């Protein structure tokens, strides 16, 4: 298998405060990696700093190799951002420009006809939805469109930053199936940020657990004994709460 992303010793500082500490991991083509951890552990910040989208006043060190190219440099970054690496933020409604229709958003990232893609994410009438403004569509539709927008440029790596938090269980199942298909068909790689154990279990090939800006565990199977306290507690809570589902 080929390595698609290689993060080496990534750290992020704000003055004297360290926000991310020495993050290293690798992701292989066609794999799904989950970033798991309590809120405030630096998951979202990690996603943003892969594409150098963090607040520019923060100091960043370390190396990020994407398909063997160093994308910590601005020049290489331009050729991957939004082209071979896509990111979907948690709140799709905030990440769309209120003055543009959905169609105008889509056309900016992909010139070709995306009707099939829109059908895939569950829009029965793509032409109609593209004429609407963000405020005219419901939260569920926005999440679907957000996914379509991230997939439209045909990326090699998709980063989903808490994309499953605000959607309901039904749509979640749909997304899970869609993502499984994409990974299977196109050898897409995915970084998935979540605090949902269910997703972690159903989707990921391997996972990292973060706490206080650090990776405290790297593993590929939930059932093998985990050594971090947070994950252990989460699993036992999960079992007690959802025992008949797990």
């Amino acid at each position, binding site marked *: 298998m080929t390595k698609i992303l290689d993060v080496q010793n990534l750290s992020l500082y704000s003055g004297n405060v360290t926000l991310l500490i020495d993050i290293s991991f690798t992701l292989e083509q066609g794999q799904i990696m989950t970033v798991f951890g*309590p*809120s405030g552990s630096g998951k979202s910040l990690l996603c943003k700093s892969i594409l150098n989208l963090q607040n520019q006043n923060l100091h960043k060190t370390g190396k990020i190799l994407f398909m063997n190219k160093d994308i910590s440099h601005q020049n290489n970054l331009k050729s991957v951002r939004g082209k071979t690496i896509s990111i979907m933020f948690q709140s799709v409604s905030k990440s769309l420009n209120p003055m543009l229709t959905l169609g105008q958003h889509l056309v900016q990232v992909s010139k070709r006809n995306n009707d099939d893609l829109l059908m895939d994410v569950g829009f029965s009438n793509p032409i109609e939805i593209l004429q609407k403004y963000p405020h005219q569509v*419901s*939260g*569920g539709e926005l999440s679907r469109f957000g996914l379509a927008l991230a997939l439209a440029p045909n990326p090699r790596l998709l980063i989903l930053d808490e994309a499953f*938090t*605000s*959607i*309901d*269980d*039904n*749509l979640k199942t749909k997304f899970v199936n869609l993502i499984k298909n994409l990974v299977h068909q196109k050898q897409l790689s995915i970084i998935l940020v979540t*605090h949902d*154990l269910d997703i972690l279990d159903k989707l990921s090939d391997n996972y990292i657990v973060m706490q206080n800006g650090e990776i405290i565990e790297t593993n590929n199977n939930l059932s093998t004994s985990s050594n971090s306290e*947070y994950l252990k*507690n*989460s699993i036992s*809570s*999960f079992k*007690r*709460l*959802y025992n008949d*589902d797990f």
Partner: protein
Amino acid sequence: MNNLLLNVANISLVNRNQILKSNQSFALKDISFSLAENNSISLIGDSASGKTSLIMALLKLKPISSGKIFYKGKDINLFSKTELVQYRRNIQPVFQNYEESLNPLLTIQNNLYYGFSNRLTKKEKLLKLNNLVNLMGLNNNILSKLPFQLSGGEKQRITIIRALVTEPEMIILDEPFSSLDVINQEKLLAVFQQIKSEFKVSYIFITHKIPLIKYFSDSIFSINKGKMQKLENYRAYENLKND
């Protein structure tokens, strides 16, 4: 059979286009359900299914277009001013967005204090407040802080305490678990169960997450595009959606 607390009969709520008052659409359509003392009911529905409108209608914060809500057999639309106040004090909401549920400029104590019944003396109020804070597993010194100094979990507990200070019979829980991780979900669930056993409250639990429903399921309803349907058990919801 327990006493019936709340009986909602065929209520509808119409969304009005603000400018020309045409474009009517139903936020809620023919909703009926009832809630008995010390029972819990669950409402499952997607985002924008009309859940928020229902909460507002139950609290009489939004007028309903048709139908009636009976509280202990009496139509809430016919309530006098004092009856309405008493009714609202008996049915307390805990909103999903706990970040915005507290007045940012008041200390936690003042955020909670004004909810107590006027019959209590100041001493009694403070005593009760301290007991509630301890019951929730929070430290007393939290009372003198401002909301922005609290963590998300603490704020959420404070909003639950606020719902309890009026000694309600029913508590409406709007997606209390949605932004929590499993560990905190479990802790919060324990809190709700303790409250139920200690204060004998009924819950109206509103959610889009199916699995936790079983803890609030004397009866289960699904709500979709403003319409409501009774379900046998929570597994039926998945079948319903797949149709």
